[in-house]
């Protein structure tokens, strides 16, 4: 298990991370979420020991990463942007180079690289140096290097940045396959919350360097309203009537003829819809959305007191 305990780091007196703790197990995907400057990249770089942190501890299987750099054999990282490969080499040469850099070589490693190279769809670009690849393929080349020696923990800092939908889907498939076959733990930072929603088991939310939430996606969503109803009517409704139409836990906002209600279960909305129908009140617009990861994150950051 990779454990981050009470990690703190500040730059020129300004805290970048304050007592952040979370863990990552083999075989799970954890998302590290937060706005720009929330401390995600600082956390990832601290795990890689590219940053000297002020307080706290990062350990792998209870061994402090500051006691020896041999833990780096267990870490694979795709750091932010396209800063992960030697642009003068091909994707496969990069993978081979970085596997050997970590101390891994031999037939099994070569086979693994060949397999991943095909799975990532890089075979048709086998002879091209990384500098000649598209942004998406550069990212795939970086992923190939990070996965080439099957590290126990893979850190992906903004892996979907600049990628098209198809490539993001390919990335999801690869991560899911790696989870099944290699029992690796993935720590993913991304602004693509749809991507996070599809692949992650747990989320860690940072805000201004502080831990806002740590838990499963279901726990996060269950703490928030599961549905959002937006309705625009052709006439205003009395707010006291509106309140009487809702039961259980809900949050009602009315702005003239526009009504927004956040609520927990689907049947909560029936009474209001029935009322509108009975009284022949025509909705000009009506939309019911279930809570997306993006919405959950936004609500969490707005509330800040959920934890």
């Amino acid at each position: 298990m990779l454990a981050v305990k009470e990690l703190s780091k500040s730059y020129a007196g300004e805290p970048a991370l304050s007592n952040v703790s979370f863990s990552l197990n083999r075989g799970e995907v954890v998302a590290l979420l937060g706005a720009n400057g929330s401390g995600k990249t600082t956390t990832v770089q601290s795990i890689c020991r590219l940053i000297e942190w002020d307080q706290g501890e990062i350990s792998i299987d209870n061994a402090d990463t500051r006691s020896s750099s041999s833990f780096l054999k267990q870490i694979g990282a795709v750091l932010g942007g396209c800063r992960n490969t030697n642009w003068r080499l091909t994707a496969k040469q990069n993978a081979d180079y970085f596997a050997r850099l970590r101390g891994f070589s031999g037939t099994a490693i070569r086979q693994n690289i060949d397999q991943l190279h095909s799975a990532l769809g890089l075979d048709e670009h086998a002879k091209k140096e990384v500098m000649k690849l598209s942004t998406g393929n550069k990212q795939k080349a970086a992923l190939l290097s990070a996965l080439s020696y099957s590290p126990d923990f893979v850190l992906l800092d903004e892996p979907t940045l600049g990628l098209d939908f198809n490539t993001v889907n390919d990335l999801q498939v690869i991560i899911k396959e790696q989870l099944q076959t290699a029992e690796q733990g993935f720590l993913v930072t991304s602004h693509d919350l749809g991507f996070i929603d599809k692949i992650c088991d747990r989320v860690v939310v940072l805000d201004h360097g502080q831990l806002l939430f740590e838990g499963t996606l279901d726990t996060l969503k269950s703490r928030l309203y599961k549905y959002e109803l937006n309705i625009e009517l052709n006439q205003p409704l009395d707010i006291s009537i509106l309140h009487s139409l809702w039961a259980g836990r809900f949050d009602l906002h009315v702005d003239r003829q526009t009504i927004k209600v956040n609520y927990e279960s689907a049947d909560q909305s029936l009474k209001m819809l029935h009322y509108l129908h009975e009284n022949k009140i025509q909705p000009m617009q009506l939309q019911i959305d279930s809570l997306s990861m993006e919405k959950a994150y936004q609500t969490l950051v707005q509330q800040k007191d959920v934890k």
Partner: protein
Amino acid sequence: MNTHLFVNEMRLQWYEMRQYWFETLSGLFFITGIFLGLFYGIKGFVLEQGDGQSLDGLLLGFLLWTFATGAYGSVTKSVIEDTQKGYIEQLFLCPKGFISLMLYRSLSESLVGLVMLTVIAYAVMAITGNWLNINFAYFYGILLLSAPSLVGFGLMISGLALLFKRVETVGAMLTLALMGLVALDGLPLNIFTFLPFVPGASLARDIVLDQSLFRLDHLLIVMVNSLVYLVGGIFVFRAFEKQAKKRNLIGQY
């Protein structure tokens, strides 16, 4: 000796030389061309004074400078270029440590550099007709023994590059300063002995040009000079690396 790292760096050299063969060849032609320009530029002047020994000295000095530039640049080039090309962070994830990686990179680049040097040496001697009676085994032995001083010096400059980034101008100036270093006489013990690579270059000149006998005290001076600069370079680089990690400057450009 970590064979993984050494083989890895040799393979990297091979990949780059093979894939960028035009760059490799043009580099060789460029260096040879520079020397020929220098050689024919001063040949007439030297022969007028009847000092044939100066031409031999020029040739050897050129070979020493070429090697010194390569050995010094092996580390600085990696830190500066890999920061710009953008994968220096990945090199810092080497479990054996970034400095070990750089030392193996320097070793592999120096070995490849020696092969190149031999090609250049014979090309230059053939073209100019100035044949030096070089015992390459001795010559290379001395160069490899004195190269760590340049690597250590390179580590010091690389440490600066980690913190202050744009040090290309300093690096270029030092590359030119190496011309002076290979020309200075650091043996027997004098003030120039304390400069990097100077004792090694002096010993090479004594053995190759003057056909002097090996002196153990001179050899010892070369070794101590190498060791002091290498250890000093590692110490300085570590201090700068720590600062760079505190300020989150690794890879920032």
